[in-house]
């Protein structure tokens, strides 16, 4: 069993908000001129990370199934004169890099995860195993309706960030991975986000041998 305690939680739940509206709403959080190249995912993650003040000695674990889908599709549309900005922006984990580069904030350990059914399981495992005094676990998706009904993007946008530490004092809750006899399990990122947003407990298998328990104090 491995566990850490939640000491801070931030979330963005813009649902169907378009990127231009997100940029207008959040622009004041970023250095002047920085948001012109930022994606919706970068803006949302910047908003949730800002109050947590990531530091170099933190471990940062990031989870996203679709990543920079808007930049990806816009980059494809730029061919044959491929856009270097969109190429750069489309590469996972660009959203976090957009935020931290704008703030010139180095971080020693940074683990960007992809996947879907076991994405939360493995991201949480990485966060709970990180030896740093504080780990920031964050994630999200941006909203885009890609052409051709390709299933290559999320229809809703959201983002979350939580700070985890070993100290139980003044904690909001506890995040734990227990051993489980169950041979299978899954938890999608959107479901995890909803539980955090609504302060709902979780207790379910999330991967072979892993049971995730989220409790609130």
């Amino acid at each position: 069993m491995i566990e850490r305690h939640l000491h801070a939680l931030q979330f963005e739940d813009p649902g169907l908000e378009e990127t231009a509206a997100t940029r207008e709403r959040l622009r004041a959080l970023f250095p002047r001129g920085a948001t012109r190249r930022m994606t919706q995912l970068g803006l949302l993650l910047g908003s949730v990370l800002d109050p947590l003040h990531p530091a170099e000695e933190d471990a940062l674990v990031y989870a996203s199934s679709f990543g920079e889908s808007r930049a990806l599709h816009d980059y494809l549309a730029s061919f044959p004169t491929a856009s270097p900005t969109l190429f750069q922006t489309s590469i996972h984990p660009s959203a976090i890099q957009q935020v931290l580069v704008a703030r010139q904030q180095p971080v020693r350990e940074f683990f960007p995860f992809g996947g879907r059914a076991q994405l939360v399981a493995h991201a949480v495992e990485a966060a709970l195993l990180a030896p740093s005094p504080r780990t920031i676990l964050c994630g999200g998706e941006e909203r885009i309706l890609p052409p051709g009904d390709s299933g290559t993007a999320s229809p809703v946008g959201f983002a979350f960030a939580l700070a985890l530490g070993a100290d139980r004092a003044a904690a909001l809750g506890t995040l734990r991975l227990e051993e489980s006899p169950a041979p299978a399990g899954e938890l999608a990122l959107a479901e995890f986000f909803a539980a955090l947003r609504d302060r709902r407990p979780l207790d379910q298998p999330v991967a072979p041998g892993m049971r995730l328990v989220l409790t609130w104090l």
Partner: protein
Amino acid sequence: MPIEAADCRTPFGDARATCDALRAGRRALTLQPVLGEAGGDAVPLATLPGRRLDETAPPAWLSCLDGLAGAVPAAPWGDARHPVFVTSSNFGVGSLYAFSRDQDRRHLEFCTPFALVEGLRRRFGWGGNVAVLSHACVSAHLGLRQASRVLQAGRAERALVFTFDFISPFVAGGFHALKILNPELPAPYAVRPTGSIGLGDGAAFAVLGRNGAGFSLSAQTLHNEMHHFTANRAGGAGFAAALEPVAAAARGRRVWLKGHGTGTLDAGRLEAEAFARQFPGAPLVSWKGALGHTLGSCGLVELALALAAVRGGEAPGTVGSAPPCFVDTVATAPFATRDYDGVVLASNAFGGAHAACLLTHD
């Protein structure tokens, strides 16, 4: 962390065949149109034999991964005690590019990282304990780091790290737009007026955890500058931050160095100088002048090659480079490995990401 097994696939074949080719000074890179069927400037690319740059449905590289997966030591991979860590920078983005051009929906099952990995999981008979990590050109190092951490915590008996990156017009077009994929073959660490990288197909695996047969990952470090997407902090502070802990772990050992060395000028100089400061006199090589940059897979492809080099008693030199170089410790010719008992391997990525490890052997 003991390394039980490792191998790779490049256009030259497995690790042993690739190492032999590198020792002979051969290049897999040839000048090809950057956009494949759509043409464009001729740039250095290295694809698997018979594979075109444009993706087919299903992808032509699947058979390569079949062969690689078949070489992995048998275990109930993907169950609770045998996790798999799949790492890549681009996954099936070549299929997404192809779909955007021809609307053939057979590409879709390869287009997203999660769909592609789920398909591979079923294809190779792995269980559901498959993690997906992606951080550009340090992806494979992250897989090794996280796999090691899970093992050290007693949460697994053995761990499989499986990595791949296959080039496409999507990727080649992007690097060409960044003006670093140019019509000259790369010469890592060499002093020249303009720099150029090459891109190559690559895949590899490593099994960690049990009997290491004499090889271990004795130190692993990470650092992320977050200074700029495509440039490092002046003075090489980011490189130093990643290499200093490895240098401390290597104290008392005689090591040679496998750098990132893509063929760019600024980063190449900073990296070479950082290595020379931390490991005075240690020979430095990069094999990307021959194989191209295999992107997310490079950390593990090149680890497998380093293992093959040590087993074979001779490390390939930096193919494609000749003096003058940024530092005089760049080894442009093969050299014997018998006098060394360790290798420092490093990779770097966009955003100023750095990863380094120390491979030790008896």
